[in-house]
């Protein structure tokens, strides 16, 4: 492994108070008509894997005026199978095209071989936090970082299933990965809250505090915020990114910022999309929370 080599690529760094939103096709026109007052726009990498075409042209045009964060949903970093070459080639081509400020994906598995053929699960499938999983995740992250010649960041995911065995808790597992690969961390606050709620955690604030305290603050490169939806008599909370950030979400965000300091923050909204204006309103709330922390830091 060559971590130094993997992280040698110097990308323009985002300021710690940067705020961005996820750009989805419904809002392309808004962004083309007027450059948004945002520090960055996030897109799902795989949506721009085509050889060429309208989406690719559009992203290149947008990236000329607004920095882009490439957030993958399909690499399957926790898969036993290595991330396929074809996937890596497409990701590299996209990275070369838009020169993103961040490349990231999720700590989950997606690839598996059935009857000798490789298939993709199409979702963010949780992994057990075992030594075996750790080995595969580290191999895949190393492989991507070396292929791209730059650091990537990994995000904690929602888990609706619980494994019988684990050698680590999630935060320690992430810590081990960071230590072994020098990758960055995306702290998804909504995912933390969904897992706490579905795991029937009685004190959310304590849960988050303990989780965040276990992380290497310097590795946290971005924070994600989103809304979630209760289903089945509210027994289960689903991370569907279909609502605004909840009041509790904003409170936890503020709490995390107070602990770790300002961090680039992304508002994710993928389903039941609001107007562009409403989405920018969510970004403004994140900005306000960042300012509050900055003021507090300066007054200390």
């Amino acid at each position, binding site marked *: 492994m060559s971590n130094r080599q993997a992280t040698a690529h110097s990308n323009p760094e985002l300021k710690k108070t940067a705020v961005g939103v996820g750009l989805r096709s419904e809002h392309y026109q808004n962004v083309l008509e007027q450059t948004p007052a945002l520090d960055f726009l996030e897109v799902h990498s*795989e*949506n721009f*894997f*085509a*050889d*060429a*075409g*309208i*989406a690719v042209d*559009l992203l290149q045009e947008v990236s000329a005026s607004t920095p882009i964060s490439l957030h*993958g*949903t*399909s*690499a*399957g970093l926790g*898969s*036993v*199978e290595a991330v396929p070459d*074809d*996937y890596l080639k*497409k990701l590299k081509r996209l990275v070369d095209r838009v020169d993103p400020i961040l490349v990231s994906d999720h700590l989950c*598995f*997606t*690839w*598996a*071989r*059935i009857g000798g*053929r*490789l*298939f*993709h*699960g*199409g*979702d963010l*499938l949780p992994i*057990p936090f*075992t030594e*075996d*999983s750790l080995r*595969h995740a580290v191999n895949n992250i190393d492989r991507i970082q070396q292929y791209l010649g730059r650091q990537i960041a990994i995000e904690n995911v929602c888990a*609706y*299933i*619980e*494994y019988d065995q684990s050698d680590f808790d999630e935060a320690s597992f992430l810590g081990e990965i960071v230590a072994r690969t020098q990758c960055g961390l995306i702290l998804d606050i909504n995912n933390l809250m969904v897992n706490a709620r579905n795991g029937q955690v009685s004190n959310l604030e304590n849960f988050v505090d303990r989780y965040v305290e276990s992380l290497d603050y310097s590795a946290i490169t971005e924070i994600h915020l989103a809304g979630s939806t209760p289903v089945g008599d509210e027994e*289960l909370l*689903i991370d569907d990114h279909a609502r605004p950030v909840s009041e509790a979400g904003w409170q936890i965000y503020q709490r995390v910022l107070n602990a770790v300091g300002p961090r680039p923050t992304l508002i994710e909204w993928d389903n039941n999309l609001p107007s562009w204006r409403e989405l920018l309103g969510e970004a403004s709330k994140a900005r306000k929370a960042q300012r509050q922390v900055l003021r507090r830091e300066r007054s200390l």
Partner: protein
Amino acid sequence: MNLSDYQAHFLQFLFGATSEPVLPNSEVYRFGVEVKAVRALEQSYPTVRALVGPADFEGLALDYFQMIRKQSGDWSDFGWGFPSWIISNRISDRVPYLSDVARLDNYIGRVERSQYEEVNVDSFAVIGEDLASCSLILNKGLQFFRSMYPVVSIWEAHKSETPKDTLSFAQAKRMIARGRGQNALIYRAGWKGMAELIPEKDLLLLESVRNQRSIAEVFGEDVLKDTSFTHWLQDMIAKGVIVGAKAIH
């Protein structure tokens, strides 16, 4: 079960190959993936969905997902084989033109995702006296095909919220009753893929151009004196269908 077997088993559960969940709540993922599969096909095949209705479309999409499964990380890649697969589905007995309509939707998606060449105006200077030694260049990004059904009218009608109120719908109905088909040209207009009806003669011309036959072979030695050729060429250049000319032999 080792980790590799576990991950394979989980995917088999997602694809409906086993009903045995790996762990409690696994069905949350199966449901989520099925929703994504249906949505991906809805986006790629809007005319098919409009034709058969959301409920039948969902059934088709889920059958397709469970049979073909997902093999790449990109959801927009999922469903390239849908038009051929439809032929073997019983819905084709009821809606025999569905596969061709799916093909048209698919081609529109391809045009939107392909390298669309710019017109090289200067290259037309090679068209001189000797028409046997030069050929036109077709945009590699465009598509055209011949259908036994009025696919362009069906596509046009189903862009409307109320297809039955459109002239295209009436035309399609009439043509289906008479067993007549249409030729479709699919090209890119600005940010969108478009389909257009073309006469058989134009389709034959485009096929000949694609096969790199000389202008003289395709259009005849005296074509430059024919104003209808000039108009045809101007129209094809304006749509980005013909993007240049080149010397051959």
